[in-house]
C-alpha cells in the first residue's frame, strides 16, 4: 500500500512536470498551429542560461531568474522572426522539419558549449515547501512545480478564453486571412506567442533541471515526451495538457513500479495510439469542423 502511494505521488509529481513543460508547446500550437519539435532544446537552453548566470556568473538567484526570463523571451521572439516567419503558408511537414532542424542545431550548440555532462544548480528552494505526510515525502521542487503549473493553467486559461489578445491569437490560428482583414497584427501575434512559449519553456527547463540535474540529452528527450502528453489531452487544450501530463506521469510511474523499467519509457506511446484510435482529437481537443 505504501509502495502504491509512493508510486502515486511520484506519478502525480512527474505528471505535473510534464504538464508544465507541455504548456509552452500548447501556447505555440494554439496561436500558430506549429508543432514545435525543438521544445526540449528550448527548455535546455533556458535551464543552461539560468545555470550559467546563477552558478557560474554568481548572480543572485532572483536576478539570474529575471535575466533568464528576458533572455528566453527574446530567443523565442528571434526564432519566430528569422526562422518561422519565412515559412508562413508553407506545408505542415516543412514547418515540422524546420523545428526538427532547429532542434538539431540547438542540441549541437549546447553540447559544444556545455558538453554532455550533468550539471547541478546550487540549492535555493526553501525547505519549508517540502511536504512530509506519513511515509510519503514530496520534495520541495515538486511542490514548486505543482504551484507553478496550477498558476500557469489558470493564467493561460483565462488569457485565451477572456482576454482580447487571447482571442486574437486564436483567431489567427483559425483563419489567417480573415484575421488580417480585421486588422489583427498577425506577425505580432506569432512573435508574441513564440516569445511567451520561450519563457514558459525556460521555466519548465529550470524546474526539470533542479530535479534531474541539467543535461542536454535528458532535457531534449523530455521534449519528445511532450508529444504524447499534448496529443493525449488534445493539442489545443491547456486543461488537456495538464490532464495528459498527469495520465502519462502516473502510467510511467506505475509501469515502472509494477511491470518493468524498460517498458516505462515506451508505455506512453502505446497508450497514446490506443486513445487516439478511440478519440482522434485527444481527450479535449477541438473536433475539426468540416463542411461539404
Amino acid at each position: 500500500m505504501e509502495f502504491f502511494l509512493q508510486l502515486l505521488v511520484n506519478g502525480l509529481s512527474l505528471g505535473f512536470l510534464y504538464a508544465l513543460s507541455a504548456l509552452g508547446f500548447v501556447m505555440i500550437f494554439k496561436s500558430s498551429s506549429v508543432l514545435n519539435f525543438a521544445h526540449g532544446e528550448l527548455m535546455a537552453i533556458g535551464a543552461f542560461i539560468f545555470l550559467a548566470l546563477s552558478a557560474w556568473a554568481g548572480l543572485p538567484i532572483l536576478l539570474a531568474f529575471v535575466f533568464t526570463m528576458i533572455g528566453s523571451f527574446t530567443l523565442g521572439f528571434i526564432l519566430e522572426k528569422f526562422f518561422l516567419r519565412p515559412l508562413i503558408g508553407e506545408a505542415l511537414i516543412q514547418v515540422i522539419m524546420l523545428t526538427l532542424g532547429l532542434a538539431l542545431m540547438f542540441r549541437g550548440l549546447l553540447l559544444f558549449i556545455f558538453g554532455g555532462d550533468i550539471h547541478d544548480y546550487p540549492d535555493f528552494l526553501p525547505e519549508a515547501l517540502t511536504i512530509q505526510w506519513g511515509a510519503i515525502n514530496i520534495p520541495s521542487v515538486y511542490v514548486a512545480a505543482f504551484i507553478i503549473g496550477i498558476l500557469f493553467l489558470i493564467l493561460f486559461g483565462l488569457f485565451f478564453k477572456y482576454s482580447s489578445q487571447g482571442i486574437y491569437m486564436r483567431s489567427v490560428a483559425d483563419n489567417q486571412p480573415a484575421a488580417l482583414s480585421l486588422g489583427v497584427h498577425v506577425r505580432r501575434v506569432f512573435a508574441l506567442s513564440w516569445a511567451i512559449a520561450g519563457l514558459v519553456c525556460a521555466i519548465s527547463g529550470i524546474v526539470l533541471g533542479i530535479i534531474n540535474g541539467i543535461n542536454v540529452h535528458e532535457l531534449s528527450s523530455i521534449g519528445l515526451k511532450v508529444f504524447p502528453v499534448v496529443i493525449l489531452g488534445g493539442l489545443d487544450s491547456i486543461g488537456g495538457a495538464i490532464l495528459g501530463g498527469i495520465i502519462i506521469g502516473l502510467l510511467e510511474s506505475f509501469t515502472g513500479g509494477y511491470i518493468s523499467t524498460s517498458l516505462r519509457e515506451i508505455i506512453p506511446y502505446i497508450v497514446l495510439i490506443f486513445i487516439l484510435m478511440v478519440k482522434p482529437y485527444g481527450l479535449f481537443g477541438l473536433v475539426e469542423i468540416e463542411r461539404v
Partner: protein
Amino acid sequence: MEGNVRLLINNISVVYSDVIQVLKGVSLTIREGQIVSLLGSNGAGKTTTLKAISGLLKPENGRVTEGSIEYDGKAVQNSSPEEITRKGIIQVLEGRQEFKYLTVEENLRVGTATRWGKPYQKDLDLVYHYFPALLARKRAMAGYCSGGELQMLVIGRALMAHPMLLLLDEPSLGLAPLLVKEIFQIIKRINEEQAATLMVVEQNANMALQIAHYGYVMENGKIVMENSAQELRENPDVKEFYLGTAASGTLKSYKDVKAYKRRKRWL
C-alpha cells in the same frame, strides 16, 4: 449630395507574383456617405480592386505597380493590412471567412483588434441590434452556424471595427432571396444610420444598384462604365448583361436562352 472624396483610386495596375497582371489602370472615386457598387463578371478584377484598397494583396504576393490609392488625401497603396485597417478601411472577405472554432461573440470581439483595449460592449449591442439572429446564437461555435448567420456575423464583425470605409465582397453569395433582401436592407441602414461609406462588389446587380448611389462596371481589369446607380439601372447594356431584363423591361426567361443557344450548337 456630393460629399467629400473618401477614397481616390488613380489609375492603378496590380500584378501578382511579378507576372500576372490583373488590373490595368483602374480609377474610381468613393465619396463620403455613399454606397458605391462595383459590378462585373467573374475574373474581371473586382476582388483584386478591393484587396488593393485593404492591403490584403500583400499576403497573396500581389502589388500595386502603378498609380495611387489615396485615402483622405494620403497615399495608402501597398501599405500593410495592419496600417490600413487602423485607418478605418475594413474589408469583408468573400465567402464568409468566419473563425470556425470561436463562438459568435468571440468572432465579433476579433473585430476590435484595430482599437485594442477600448470598451466594446456598446458595439456588441449595436451589432445585436442590427442582427438579432446573432444574439440568440452568441455562444454557438461559428463553424456550426448557417450560411445566413455567418454572413451577418462577418458583416457584424467588421462593424465592430468602427469602419470609416467598409468594403463588402459578394455579401449575397449563396443566400436565399429573402435573406439577400434582408442583408441589403441592413447594409442600407448601416449606411444611413452609421453614416458609413460602403463599397459593394456584387454579382446580384439588381440588389446592388437598388441600394447604391453610384456604380462602376468592370471588365478584364478595366473600368468600362461608371454612372449614378439610377442611370446604370436604366442603361440598356447593363439591363441586358447584368440585370437580365430584356429591352421590354420584363425578366428574361432562361428557357429562351437555352433554346437559342442550343440551336446554335446543333447547326
